[in-house]
């Protein structure tokens, strides 16, 4: 590996208190940043709005971001318009839809025997909403974490697949994950979609039940990305490459099953995630193949880090579907400007990782593991099905 001439070796990188901050925490603790000549200060951020503002005001060099956030910032629909770039997906899966015990009980009573899995819960919820309406009961309240989050689109996708109209049939609000558990306990919300470990935290606290996972809505779909502004990426190309390379190494380390317990310990000890150690361990523990909620957090396997332009386009199309952005916006062009597989490939080559040779892939085509040609050998890929068995074409 030829050393890079770094434009800016000392960096501030923002993380949010969630299990998927772990690649950044591991890159620091296990010396992957240092190996690439980087001196990183990790700052803990408590609001996605703060992450966005600090990036666009150059108070942070890079940050853990919700996968749709750099797209929304670039489109100018989220506060000050700021072109952003994502050259690395930090993780796949991890989110869960949790409902209160009371709602869980009502849904279970209502669910027909043929209504199974994630779609079955949505169908039961639709009938419950209709009977509530007929009975004059107040609308249900569900929360997610941010207007431009994968959680928000997953929740809407799930509701809509069950025939529920998210903008008319219930109330959707934003509540930060640690507060959502308390709100669910207090009966102020009936359900929420949050990242790991907060669904498990709610379940262990006995205030709610996980009924659906992100994996069940869209197998192995992107959750967080490493976001930087486009201006920063253009001014610091070598530093960006070093940063992505270090994080690919951290992700590869994380996806060796024997390292997950150590990763959980690091995340708990560094204090970035204030949750019970057993919840952090559970969030990072590799799941059995027959786990009812499907696959858990993935950081590297199946080209997990690769920023698929087609998946970015899917997010922009969801923004259009739910009228967050005009239909006239060119989704494909926006996706290609923000998600940058070219940078990922250059970084992967530096650390001996095989990267996909194409920028687009279809979704919903693979129920079983499959193989994809890579720059440095074949890549074993995971399933990519959507909840409603839809097929999403690559181009």
């Amino acid at each position, binding site marked *: 590996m030829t050393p890079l001439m770094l434009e800016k070796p000392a960096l501030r990188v923002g993380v949010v208190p969630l299990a998927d901050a772990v690649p950044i925490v591991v890159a620091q603790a296990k010396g992957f940043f240092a190996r690439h000549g980087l001196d990183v200060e990790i700052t803990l951020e408590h609001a996605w*709005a*703060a992450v966005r*503002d600090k990036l666009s005001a150059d*108070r942070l060099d890079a940050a853990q971001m919700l996968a749709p956030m750099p797209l929304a910032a670039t489109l100018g629909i989220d*506060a000050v318009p700021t072109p952003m770039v994502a050259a690395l997906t930090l993780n796949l899966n991890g989110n869960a839809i949790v409902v209160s015990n009371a709602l869980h009980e009502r849904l279970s009573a209502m669910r027909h025997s043929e209504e199974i899995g994630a779609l079955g819960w949505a169908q039961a919820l639709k009938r419950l909403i209709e009977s509530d309406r007929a009975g004059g009961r107040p609308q249900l309240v569900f929360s997610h974490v941010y207007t431009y989050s994968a959680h928000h689109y997953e929740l809407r996708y799930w509701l809509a697949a069950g025939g529920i109209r998210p903008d008319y049939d219930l109330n959707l*609000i934003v509540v930060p994950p640690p*507060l959502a558990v308390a709100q669910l306990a207090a009966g102020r919300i009936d359900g929420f979609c949050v990242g790991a470990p907060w669904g498990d935290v709610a379940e262990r606290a006995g205030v709610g039940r996980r009924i659906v996972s992100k994996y069940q809505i869209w197998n192995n779909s992107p959750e967080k990305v490493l976001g930087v502004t486009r201006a920063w990426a253009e001014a610091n190309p070598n530093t960006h490459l070093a940063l992505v390379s270090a994080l690919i190494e951290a992700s590869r380390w994380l996806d060796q099953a024997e390292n997950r317990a150590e990763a959980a310990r690091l995340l708990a000890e560094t204090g970035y995630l204030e949750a019970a150690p057993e919840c952090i361990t559970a969030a990072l523990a590799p799941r059995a193949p027959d786990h009812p909620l499907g696959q858990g957090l993935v950081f590297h396997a199946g080209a997990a880090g690769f920023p698929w332009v087609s998946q970015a386009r899917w997010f922009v199309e969801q923004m259009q579907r739910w009228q967050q952005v005009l239909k006239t916006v060119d989704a494909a062009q926006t996706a290609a400007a923000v998600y940058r597989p070219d940078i990922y490939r250059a970084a992967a080559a530096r650390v001996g990782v095989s990267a996909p040779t194409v920028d687009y892939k279809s979704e919903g085509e693979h129920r079983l593991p499959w193989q994809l040609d890579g720059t440095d050998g074949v890549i074993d890929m995971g399933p990519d099905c959507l909840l409603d068995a839809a097929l999403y074409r690559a181009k």
Partner: protein
Amino acid sequence: MRIMLVDDDRVRLQQVEQALAAAGDEVIVRLDSRADLLQAVQRYSPDVILIDIDAPGRDTLESLNRISLDCPRPIVMFTDDGDTDTIRRAVRAGVSAYVVAGLNAERLKPIVDVAIARFHEHQSLKRELDEAKTRLADRRDVERAKGLLMQRRKLNETDAYELLRKMAMDRNLKIGEAARALIAAAELL
């Protein structure tokens, strides 16, 4: 003016409250950043919210402003970050402003006032834009509805328009709404 303060820094909270009180503003509620902001906003209905830039509740407040089209509220933020560029960018966004920590009483009030003025300016621009969009949509839909009536009832353009106007009046609708109702009905048949 009714103000809601959200901050975990007790000392700063007190300073800001004193400064605002000196300027004649009423702080109606002080909350820490873990409070249920949704409920607090509904209960106290503040004119403006001052919140720490790092408070988790910021995401909730921003989304409230997006969904409650009837009563969005200006949000002003505290920060320990003295960078003027940060402040300039936030103010330029037209929806919020940053208040640097340790700001003296005389400077606090004008910043809050400017943030609120900017916010209302932004809201009225947004409303104008929405209205302009509706007018355009109305014109398009009235033309389509007129075409449908001309075709199906064999009317000339003037009579078709008169009929549409009468339908709107009878149903107590705006002409654009009547046109859309007619188009929707035609699509069903």
